[in-house]
């Protein structure tokens, strides 16, 4: 119908002088003819006629749109789209910015270790408000939804998560090593600003995740330790079957020298008794190590060895076998109540060996942050014990006679402080729970 190309519009088209004047007056009068001076009105009227063409109605919700064949939106659809776009925009983190005042307050709060009380007074209210807001992150998802994860799926998740974190840490370390090597050759590719942003992200993520990870890690360690004790239970059982019910013993020893002399003289060390399980291949070094002991040794560099090299390498305390013969040890399988065979290393011995003047006999093993200890009993069951008391009158760190003496001095009930062990104490009878290195 219309051939646009035959009549191109020249940008140099100009209005005649009179028309231009009339147009200026029309604009000034908001296109109201009556407001235009009479001398220009005729021209203004003509202008209005021409421009009136622009009033041609635009068909709004019709598919016969003038210039595009594309499908079109109804008014309601378009309004909905607008509203949705605004919503999407608002939840896009790239479009959210803190106000400068909030930025300053947040920076101060981070520098104050998230403690608003330590933020300068001018920003304290704002920082406190932010801290309250951020504390929402502490909400445990389980307690809020009332939909706790099943035990097995939680364990799987913990295992998978820890594996992922470990892998990521290892690959990060590799990358850092690579970067460090790379940096020596080239100029750094990151700007200081980038590094600060990365550091901030890591800092915040770390602050949020760290308590969670450390709790998860500790319960992972407890579980791994308990699994080791169960494996060692099997080793005890096989050893007893093969050795006329005896418990592992390095050599008969009558005592008299400290049984905590680990490494130097195996015949004097109680840990050498436990090491027998490894020496005669009933248990591995790895099983005899608790991941809660940072000094634990998991591999052995000599087949002929008869003990751990040093006291800190020993993760578990074994029932004190001093004053017994090999055959007599078989009695532990027949006591009325199960006896403690093995436990996470004794805090009482650790402290005594360190030279403490007094020891707290109620202190839990250092293997699990003092939360408790795993023990293995002579009925070959293993479990978690929250205090060193296996029964109301048997402390696994002490021989019965000493416990009685302490009880008589009424010290057990006043904080449980006692004179340290000397390393030569022995159990009173086969039923007395008393473990030591």
């Amino acid at each position, binding site marked *: *119908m219309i051939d646009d190309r035959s009549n191109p519009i020249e940008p140099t088209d100009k209005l*005649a002088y009179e028309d231009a004047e009339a147009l200026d007056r029309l604009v000034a009068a908001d296109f109201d003819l009556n407001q235009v001076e009479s001398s220009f009105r005729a021209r203004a009227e003509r202008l209005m006629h021409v421009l009136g063409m622009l009033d041609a109605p635009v068909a709004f919700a019709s598919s016969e749109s*003038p210039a*595009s064949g594309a499908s079109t939106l109804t008014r309601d659809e*378009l309004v909905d789209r607008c509203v949705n776009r605004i919503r999407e925009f608002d939840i896009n983190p790239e479009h959210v910015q803190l106000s400068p005042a909030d930025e300053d307050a947040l920076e101060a709060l981070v520098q104050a270790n998230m403690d608003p009380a330590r933020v300068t007074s001018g920003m304290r209210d704002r920082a406190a408000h932010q801290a309250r807001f951020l504390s929402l992150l502490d909400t445990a998802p389980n307690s809020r939804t009332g939909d706790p994860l099943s035990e097995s799926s939680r364990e799987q998740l913990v295992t998978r998560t820890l594996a992922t974190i470990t892998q990521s840490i290892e690959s990060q370390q590799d990358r850092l090593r690579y970067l460090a090597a790379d940096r020596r050759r080239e100029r750094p590719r990151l700007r200081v600003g980038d590094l600060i942003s990365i550091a901030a992200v890591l800092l915040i993520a770390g602050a949020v995740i760290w308590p969670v990870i450390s709790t998860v890690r500790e319960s992972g360690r407890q579980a791994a330790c308990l699994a080791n004790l169960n494996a060692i239970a099997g080793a005890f059982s096989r050893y007893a079957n093969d050795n006329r019910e005896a418990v592992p013993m390095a050599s008969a020893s009558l005592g008299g020298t400290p049984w905590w002399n680990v490494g130097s003289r195996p015949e004097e060390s109680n840990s050498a008794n436990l090491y027998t399980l490894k020496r005669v291949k009933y248990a591995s070094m790895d099983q005899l190590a608790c991941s809660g002991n940072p000094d634990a040794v998991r591999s052995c560099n000599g087949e002929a060895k008869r003990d751990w090299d040093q006291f800190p390498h020993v993760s578990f305390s074994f029932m004190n076998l001093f004053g017994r013969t090999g055959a007599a040890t078989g009695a532990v399988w027949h006591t009325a109540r199960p006896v403690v065979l093995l436990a996470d290393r004794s805090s009482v011995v650790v402290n005594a060996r360190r030279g403490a003047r007094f020891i707290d006999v109620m202190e839990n093993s250092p293997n699990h942050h003092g939360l408790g200890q795993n023990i293995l009993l002579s009925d070959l069951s293993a479990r978690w014990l929250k205090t060193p008391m296996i029964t109301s009158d048997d402390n696994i760190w002490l021989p019965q006679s000493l416990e009685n003496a302490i009880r008589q001095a009424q010290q057990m009930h006043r904080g449980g402080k006692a004179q340290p062990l000397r390393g030569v104490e022995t159990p009173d009878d086969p039923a007395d729970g008393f473990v030591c290195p």
Partner: protein
Amino acid sequence: MDQRTDNELLQAYRAGESRALEELIRRHHDDLMRFLIRLTGDRASAEDVFQDTFLQVHISADAFDASRRFKPWLFTIAANKARDLLRRNARRRAFDLDSPVSRSSSSGDATTFMDLMQVRVDQPADAVSSAERDSMVQSVISNLPVSLREVLLLAYFQKMSYNQIADALDIPLGTVKSRLHAAVAAFARKWQVISKGQTSS
């Protein structure tokens, strides 16, 4: 229908009443879409710009000077968003010889003075349907360079003063004037050609 003024609605939106913006969108839909279809030349682009415009209203709501009128502000945003879109499209079609921009730039220096007294402004025959008339107007406007188009539409539809347009588009006052003059002249000339073709066919 909400009885509040535009400014009251925007104020309410700023205070957190999210329905208020929806009412504003609804209220200005027809005017703004007419303006945008005329300005961009096609409906799909107009719809895009329409959404961009209200998104910008949402983003800038707090910066709006409540002592000013809402509608000119809205159309200023829309004109600028449309300009962005057309500029993007023009870049994409830089080598498209059919585009009005490249055609006009290849033309000579000859200046044509339009005297409107010589322009026939008879209404097209009754037989011409409103859809055809719509398409004629659009084709005339689409042939104007964007710089002229926006000035013409803001002046005519929004009754903006030269000062307001200069402010809105961030161009000198003198340029606004000369562009409006050129726009009206070009529009008249093109209209003349088209309506002649229409009546003679």
